């Protein structure tokens, strides 16, 4: 991952900061500058998600890229935040413990690193609530 690309999204990754359209009361993560439903009538404000949600679906990763290999097997899931939006995230639990519908909450973890010399990427993952 390019350092610059990560850095631009860092705030959103660290704190689950997205957007909210006050016209139709829809929440977006990652943040959107325009509401696709309301278009010009949409009023967008920044919002910080509480970090609580539920697992919609998940898969267990056994073969991962080199920089994530040490973590295998790990759970990758789609989490629906209580405010509505869905996002893909690693779920920190034993693969056998993961289940659809499990309540989760956000935690701050290392997402990865380029190499021993490179940047370390931090951000949000989920654990059982």
């Amino acid at each position, binding site marked *: 991952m390019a350092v610059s690309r990560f850095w631009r999204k*860092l*705030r959103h990754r*660290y*704190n689950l900061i997205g957007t909210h359209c006050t016209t139709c009361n829809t929440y977006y993560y990652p943040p959107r500058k325009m509401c696709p439903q309301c278009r010009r009538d949409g009023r967008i404000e920044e919002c*910080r998600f509480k970090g609580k949600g539920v697992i919609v679906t998940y898969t267990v990763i056994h073969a991962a890229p080199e920089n994530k*290999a*040490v*973590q295998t097997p790990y759970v990758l899931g789609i989490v629906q935040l209580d405010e509505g939006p869905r996002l893909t995230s*690693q779920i*920190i639990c034993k693969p056998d413990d993961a289940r659809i519908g499990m309540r989760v909450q956000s*935690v*701050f*973890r*290392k*997402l990865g690193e380029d190499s021993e010399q490179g940047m*370390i990427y*931090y951000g949000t*993952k989920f654990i059982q609530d």
Partner: protein
Amino acid sequence: MTNIGIVSYGAYIPRYRIKIEEIAKIWGDSPDAIKNGLKVYEKSVPDIDEDTATMAVEAARNAVKRKNIDTTRIEAIYTGSESHPYAVKPTSTIIAEAISASPILTAADVEFACKAGTAAMQMCMGLVKSEMIDLGLAIGSDVAQGAPGDALEYTAAAGAVAYIIGRDELAAEIEETYSVTTDTPDFWRREGMPYPEHGGRFTGEPGYFKHVTLAAKGLMEKTNTAPEDYDYAVFHQPNGKFPLRVASLLGFTTKQLKPGYVAPYLGNTYSGSAMMGLAATLDVAKTGERIFVTSFGSGAGSDAFSITVCDCIEEIKNKAPTVQHLLENPLYLSYGMYAKHKRKIKV
């Protein structure tokens, strides 16, 4: 005179533990001899994706949550650690962003072996007292390093503690602090080396006991207090044995130590050690009670604090996980999994 002290605090301990038996088995040591010698039975281990920065963020977020702090009021962040993830790129910058205190604040990382966190507290105390800042955040966080097979491996643990220092709505007032610092080569790590070196078993006397005793006695003299004036006492816990011995040398009782004596089931959390003991004590302390704290960092030095618990403790109690809660429900690792967690083997 302006009163200063702890407005809020938060701790973090990873879920994983390894038992002394599991490590002793690998190196052919007697687990009973180790447990009796060190008075440590198990220690915390970080998850594979946890490091000093992630634990510091979790502790800082717990401190913010406990008192529902407006994080833009935090105008200084100092993070004490000897395991900062970067050699150049401050851990405090990551914390500032992760608690949304950025960008209007001063920040720096602090290093002084196991007492970097209490040094960070003193830095915040000075800035708060002089009214240069509103609130300061002082953190001790470490993923302690011990070379495989070294005696340190039995105690080197992981954890973080964060204190928000301010002037108003104090949960505990810090009345006085007293420090000693000398050039003592009891423990060191050269730049670029993965594990620390130490002077072996003799390091206890010229290092830990000398400095803790000097600082503790100095503080009691400065404040005109004696051990019996305090309800609780916390000393740096490189193992379970040293704090018991130094307490008895100084005239403190095991009853005073009890709530903050966390090393037996946690290990040595280095920069977080004395601060974790203080957090565990604040978890149970009541208004008006007094706490005596002395940290120690190899190299070497000690910071001692005289603290009195205030009314505001009641409203922030149980608003964030207690140290006792964080110690509950551990997940035990085999040595193989432990090595993977600590990256002692390269994959």
